[in-house]
């Protein structure tokens, strides 16, 4: 287990409001990590910083064996480093079929000419079928993603994440809109993915987090309030005050 991602001393302000305040988190590879915290704690913003969507005012974000600074890379470069993201509000390409969504996500060369000239490798289609089976969308492969239910879109986005075969998966509230059975399946999926990679899951649902059975980081007002096993953090007085007690 070695450190894959190191976020240290990061702060972000939006119009003077400090959304992230001197935040430091380390993620190992492989690792499964749950991030919890009340609304507005900065969980999504934390992911925005790692993926290059938001530039922090100060601090460092280092990646991989060579400790590359992610802050100097663009969004697409960061993604190509092996960081995949599932958004809080499911964002799939609604006008395109489930198969097309997955095909676009598959780990393959990303340049325009690579994409234009390298067409329809049979392996790719096999891989798409495997992923579709895993996320339960085999029947829906030919359907437009826009026709899917909220839960199915969540699945599709998880599938797109798996298709990218990233080293680090950032998963923002994957279980929203899912039935209890689907939630259970999601936990299995994430746990399996975390055997070989780093997976960071943001979730509000405590039952979900409990099933993940992993190290938990509690965020509050943009910094880490507590870190450890779920039992450990839920006993923490501060955590009870700001989050669980309400």
């Amino acid at each position: 287990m070695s450190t894959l991602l190191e976020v240290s001393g990061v702060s972000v302000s939006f119009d003077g409001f400090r959304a992230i305040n001197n935040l430091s988190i380390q993620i190992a590879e492989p690792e499964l990590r749950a991030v919890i915290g009340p609304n507005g704690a900065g969980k999504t913003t934390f992911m925005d910083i790692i993926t290059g969507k938001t530039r922090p005012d100060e601090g460092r974000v280092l990646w991989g064996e060579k400790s590359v600074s992610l802050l100097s890379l663009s969004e697409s470069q960061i993604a190509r480093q092996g960081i995949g993201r599932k958004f809080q509000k499911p964002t799939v390409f609604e006008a395109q079929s489930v198969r097309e969504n997955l095909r676009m996500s598959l780990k393959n060369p990303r340049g325009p000419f690579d994409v234009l000239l390298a067409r329809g490798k049979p392996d790719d289609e096999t891989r798409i079928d495997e992923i579709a089976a895993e996320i339960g969308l085999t029947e829906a492969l030919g359907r437009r993603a826009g026709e899917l239910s909220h839960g199915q879109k969540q699945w599709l986005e998880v599938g797109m994440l798996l298709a990218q075969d990233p080293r680090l998966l950032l998963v923002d509230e994957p279980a929203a809109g899912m039935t209890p059975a689907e939630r259970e399946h999601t936990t299995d999926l994430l746990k399996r993915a975390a055997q070989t990679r780093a997976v960071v899951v943001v979730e509000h649902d405590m039952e979900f987090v409990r099933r993940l059975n992993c190290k938990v980081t509690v965020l509050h007002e943009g910094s880490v309030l507590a870190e450890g096993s779920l039992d450990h953090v839920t006993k923490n007085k501060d955590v009870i005050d700001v989050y669980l007690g309400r």
Partner: protein
Amino acid sequence: MATTDMAGPGFRPAPDRRPFILRNPSVMYFLAALAVFTLGVTLLSEATGVGFLSTSFVKTLGKTLCLCLVAVAMDVVWGYCGILSLGHMAFFGIGGYAIGMWLMYARTEIIVAESLAASVIPPTPDEVRDAIGSQIFGVVGASEFPWVWGFASSLPLQLLMVVAVPGLLALVFGWLAFRTRVAGVYLSILTQAMTLALALYLFQNDSGLRGNNGLSGLQNIPGYGETSQDVISIAFFWASALALALGYVLFAWVVSGKMGSVVRGIRDNEARVRFLGYHVESYKLFIFTLTAVVAGIAGALYYPQAGIINPAELAPIASIYLAVWVAVGGRGRLYGAVIGAAFVSLLSSWFTGGGAPAINLGFYRIQWTDWWLILLGLSFVGVTLFAPKGIGGLFDLIAERRTPDRTGDYGPNDGAWRKEEGREE
């Protein structure tokens, strides 16, 4: 299409190895329709047929095909990639200028050679060049060849300019604009500024392209002085049809498969495409430049049929019309662009050419030459508000009626009218 029988979980049709065109019925239908149209015009023209269509009408049709080609390019850049470029007619015009320079030079060269042939002392190459220069630039009070005419004596080089100049301009402009993530309305305005600047530059006499006189006599093809215009017109009509066919297939290929997915993804949510690891700017630049090159080729075929090109052709409004055609035809589908361009431009020449009878309201006479633009503007607003899919959207109605609803979990057979089967009578 592969049969959808026996589609169970995990079923996947075998990879389709047929050629690209056969796999895409809409491309095939389009090519068939274009072939039938070309054949029909050929049989009705003066040079190769019964002479039912006048030479000038054949030219109009040939020009229309070129407009269809640039509209297809516009559809790819706007309808598929989401870049509302309001400058693509500038590339079209540059293509026209590039070929026009050779046409004017080579024809003037022949005329000068003829007139100097009578002189006792054979003229030196310099004298010939000076004579050509004063012939071409006399109208702007100059006789020196400006540097931009450096390649004008060579057809291959000038043909290269047809693609190279629009391509390079698009590449540089696009690189500057996309790199700084200029998008949406700001990008549209920037493209308008580009075409306006270009037109204003060309209007100047010292731009070296004869200012507001533009280039003329382009319908006379050097070396074919003896050939009559009816033959030339049908030859250009064929060339335009071929170019449209090739361009259509090229773009249909580009917007199919994974490339098409990425490009449409950029249109719908470019940030999401970035987070998948695609460098969105390179894709935009690729599409912008490729469509600009095709626009240049379309222009190079158009202006020999029009006979004249001047800076007004590059005016910002021309590019706006292009967007209107694509919107009216239905963006996001290539045949929609063709329909829009053909329909609106032919209708426009009918109205403005005095073809449409004036309507007498008693108190007021509607002259279509004045009112056509207002009608066009109103129909554009109408299409945008009430039929965003444009004329091409009508094809969806046909398609929807033909294919049964294959969704849902009813019935034994995936291709059947499942809901009907499941219903108990």
